[in-house]
C-alpha cells in the first residue's frame, strides 16, 4: 500500500480557527499538522483526544479520528484507546487547566508509561471561562480569581511527568520552529511522551500581566525551567510490558469455583446454621470451608460467609455456614443452631449471636471460653486424648472433626474426602492425620 501524501491534516473547510486574535493555539495545531505530514501517517491511524477548554475546540480542525470527552480525563480515554488498539497513534491535546483537574491521571499515565503523546497547551490561565487562575499561573499574577496576585506555587507540568517516570518529556513554546520534529520524536517514543508547550492567552493572561513572548522566555529562565528534551528513557511502555503479562498469564491458576460430585448421603431434614468463632491465624475460614465442602459432597446445600477485620493476622475470624437439605435461600444467621468458640476474639465478636441462642441450641467452647451469657446448652469441646498436643496449632480443623462427629449432619468420611479434594497435599496430610485421632 502506498502511503497517503496529504498536504495538511487540518480540515480546511472548518477554518479559520475560532481562537481569539493572537492566541497561540493555532500555531501548535499547525505544528501538529506538519508533524503528521512529515510522518506521512494515514489520517485513520491517528486519534486526537481533546480535553475541555479552548484546546477542546481543536478536534474539528483535523481530518483524523477524534475524541472529545470530559475535563481533565482526556489522558484516561487516550490510554484506553491505545491499550485496545496499539496500531493507532494517540495524541492528547490538553490545557494547563486539564493538567490541574486531571493531575492524578497525568502523573499515573507517566508511571504506567502508556504509549500516548500528550501536548500541553500551557497558557497559564483558564481562557474559555474568563481567565481564572490555573495550576501553572505564575506567582503574583493577576487573573479573574487572583485579582490581588496569585499566591500559589505554580505546578511544573513537564517536571511532574519527568519525576513520575514519563518515557519522553520535553518543554517547548508555541513559537519553536522545531515543534513538528519534537512532536515526531515524542510520537515515535515507545512509552508515555509529553511536551509542555508554553504559549500566550492574548484574551486574558497577556493583557492582565503585560506578558508577551519576551516576558514568557524571561519567566522560563527565572524559574530554571529549561526547554528541550528533559527525559528520554528506555523503560518499556505499558503496551510492551502487558504483552509479557499476557504471555505468562496462563501459568496462573484459574480462579473458578470448586466442582464437587455428590458421593455420600445425609438424612438431614432441616437447615443447620453453624458459626465458628476464633482468631486470625487459627484457619477458621478454612475449617468452615471443610464443613461446607463435606456437606456438599453429601448432597446437601451450603452457604459460607467469612468475617474478619480489614487488617489480617490479628483480631477475630468468624465463619458462618448454613447446611441445608434444600438450596439455601436465606443465608443470614441471626441465631445460630450451633456455635463453636475457639478464641476469645471470636467469642466477643459473636456475643450478639450467642446471646440470641435458645435452649435447643448448643455452644461448644474451648478451654476458658465457657460461661457464655446465653440460654443455649453449653458444652466443652472434647478433643480425643491423642489430639491434645495438636490443639494449640490446629484447633479449627479439630473442631470441624469434633462437630462432624457430634452433630452427625453428614458422614465423617465426607469430611476426609473434602480435605482430599480441596486442600493442598501437604495441608491435607496434616488434617487427615488430625482426623485419625477421632477414629
Amino acid at each position, binding site marked *: 500500500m502506498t502511503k497517503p501524501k496529504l498536504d495538511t491534516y487540518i480540515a480546511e473547510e472548518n477554518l479559520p480557527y475560532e481562537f481569539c486574535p493572537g492566541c497561540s493555539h493555532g500555531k501548535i495545531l499547525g505544528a501538529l499538522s506538519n508533524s503528521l505530514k512529515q510522518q506521512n501517517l*494515514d489520517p*485513520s*491511524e491517528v*486519534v486526537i483526544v481533546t480535553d475541555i477548554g479552548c484546546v477542546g475546540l481543536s*478536534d*474539528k480542525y483535523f*481530518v*483524523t*479520528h*477524534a*475524541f*472529545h*470527552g*470530559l475535563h481533565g*480525563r482526556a489522558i*484516561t*480515554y*487516550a*490510554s*484506553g*484507546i*491505545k*491499550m*485496545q*488498539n496499539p*496500531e*493507532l497513534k494517540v495524541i492528547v491535546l490538553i490545557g494547563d487547566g486539564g493538567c490541574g483537574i486531571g493531575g*492524578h*491521571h497525568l502523573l*499515573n499515565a507517566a508511571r504506567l508509561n502508556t504509549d500516548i503523546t500528550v501536548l500541553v497547551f500551557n497558557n497559564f490561565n483558564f481562557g474559555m471561562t474568563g481567565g481564572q487562575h490555573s495550576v501553572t499561573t505564575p506567582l503574583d499574577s493577576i487573573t479573574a480569581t487572583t485579582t490581588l496576585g496569585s499566591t500559589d506555587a505554580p505546578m511544573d507540568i513537564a517536571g511532574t511527568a519527568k519525576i513520575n517516570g514519563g518515557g519522553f518529556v520535553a518543554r517547548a513554546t508555541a513559537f519553536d520552529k522545531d515543534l513538528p520534529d519534537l512532536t515526531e520524536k515524542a510520537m515515535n517514543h515507545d512509552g508515555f511522551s509529553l511536551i509542555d508547550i508554553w504559549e500566550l492567552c492574548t484574551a486574558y493572561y497577556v493583557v492582565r500581566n503585560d506578558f508577551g513572548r519576551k516576558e514568557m522566555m524571561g519567566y522560563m529562565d527565572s524559574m530554571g525551567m529549561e526547554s528541550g528534551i528533559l527525559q528520554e528513557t528506555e523503560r518499556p511502555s505499558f503496551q510492551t510490558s502487558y504483552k509479557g*503479562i*499476557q504471555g505468562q*498469564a*496462563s501459568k*496462573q491458576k*484459574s*480462579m*473458578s*469455583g*470448586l*466442582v464437587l*460430585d*455428590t458421593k455420600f448421603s445425609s438424612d438431614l431434614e432441616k437447615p443447620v446454621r453453624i458459626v465458628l468463632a476464633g482468631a486470625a491465624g487459627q484457619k477458621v475460614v478454612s475449617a468452615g470451608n471443610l464443613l*461446607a*465442602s463435606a*456437606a*456438599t459432597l453429601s448432597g*446437601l*446445600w*451450603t*452457604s*459460607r*460467609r467469612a468475617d474478619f477485620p*480489614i487488617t489480617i493476622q490479628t483480631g477475630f475470624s468468624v465463619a458462618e455456614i448454613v447446611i441445608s437439605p434444600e*438450596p439455601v*435461600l*436465606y*443465608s*443470614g444467621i*441471626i441465631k445460630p443452631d450451633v456455635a463453636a468458640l475457639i478464641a476469645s476474639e471470636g467469642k466477643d465478636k459473636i456475643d450478639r449471636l450467642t446471646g440470641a441462642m435458645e435452649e435447643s441450641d448448643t455452644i461448644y467452647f474451648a478451654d476458658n471460653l465457657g460461661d457464655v451469657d446465653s440460654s443455649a446448652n453449653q458444652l466443652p469441646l472434647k478433643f480425643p486424648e491423642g489430639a491434645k498436643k495438636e490443639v494449640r496449632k490446629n484447633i479449627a480443623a479439630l473442631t470441624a472433626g469434633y462437630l462432624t462427629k457430634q452433630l452427625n449432619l453428614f458422614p465423617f468420611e465426607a469430611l476426609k474426602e473434602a480435605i482430599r479434594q480441596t486442600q493442598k497435599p501437604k495441608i491435607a496430610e496434616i488434617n487427615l492425620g488430625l482426623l485419625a485421632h477421632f477414629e
Partner: protein
Amino acid sequence: MNTKRREMVDGAAAIARGALDAGCNFYAGYPITPASGILTHMLRELPKVGGIGLQGEDEISSLGHCIGAATAGATVFTATSGPGLSLYSENLGLSIMMEIPLVIAISQRLGPSTGAATATAQGDIQFMRWCTSGGYPVIVLSPTNIPESYHLTKRAFKLAKRFRNPVFIATDKETVMTTESVAESEMLNAPSWNDIPDKPVYKPLDPYQKNGAIHHYTGSSHTEEGHITKDPEIIAEFNERLKNKITDHIEEISLVKEDMESGSDTLIISYGISARSMEAAVNKLRSNGEKISALTIYSLWPIPEKRILSSLDGIKRIIIPEMNHGQYRHEIERLANKDVDIVGVNRVDTFLITPEEIIKAYND
C-alpha cells in the same frame, strides 16, 4: 448431565465468568470491598485470553479507560460499589452521550458514605437509575443468586451492545462475597428468558481503526457524524432518541419471575438478595395453607410496568422487602391503585431481611 454435580462458587466469580463468556476483553476498575473479587478475577483471567485488565488510579480513570477502549472496539466491563459509583457519575454521562456499550456491576454496601463497611445493602437502586446529569435512562438488572449472577451478566452484555448504553448489574455484598454450593446444571443452562436480538437498535459502534472510516466521538451534543452542533432541532432529535431507544423497548428488556397463586389477595414484590428471603417466606406460608403470590423483578430499570400491573389483578395488599428505606416501594406506589395497601419490610442495620419478618408483615 450429572445433576448431583455441585460447584462451590461466589458471586464475584460467577459475574466475572459471565463477563468473560459474553466476550468481554477489557476491564478496568479500582479496588473496593465488596467488588474487589470481580477486579482480581478479571485481571487474572483476561490476559489469558488475550484481553486487557488493569487497575486504574481511581474510579474516574478506570471508567475513562473503559470508554476509550470501547471506542477502539473493546467489549468493556467494570465493577464497583456505591462510593465508586459516585466517582463513575460524570463518565456515565459521557457513556450515555457517546452511546458506549458498557456493563457495570455494582456490589452494594450499606452507606451513606463509607457507611458500615462492609455490610450488605440495596441502597443504590435509585442511584443507579439517576447516576448522572440529564436523567437519561439506563438499564439495571438484579440477580437474586449466583447462577442468575452469571446469566444476567451475560444478558447485560447483549443489552449493552443492542442499546449502546450503560447496563448495570445491581448486586450486593452478600451475593458477591458468599460462597455457595450451586447445581452445575444451573450455571450451565440459562433460564428460559426471552432472547435479546443481536442487532443494535440504532447503528453499531464503529470503532477507530487504521484504514477504517474516520470517526468523531464527543460528549457534546452532536450530529449523526459526531460533529458538535448547536442546532436546537438536531439536539432535540438526538436527545429524544437517547431516551426512546430504551423506553420504546421496555417489553423486550422487562424480566420478572411471576409466582402467582390464584385466589391470593396478597402479592410480595422483591428483587436481589431480598427476593430469596421472599421465596423462603412464600414457601413457609404456602406450607401453612396460605394463598400468596410473589413477583421477583430482575429488570429494575426501566421499570417493567406492564408486567407489574398485570400481576396486580385481584391484589389488595403488596408487601415489598428491600434493604433500604423503600426505594422501589415508591415506584410500586406510583403504579398501584390507591386502594391497594402497600407495606414495606426494610432493614438498614447490616442484617439481611429474614423470612420471618416477611411472614410477620403478612400476618399483621
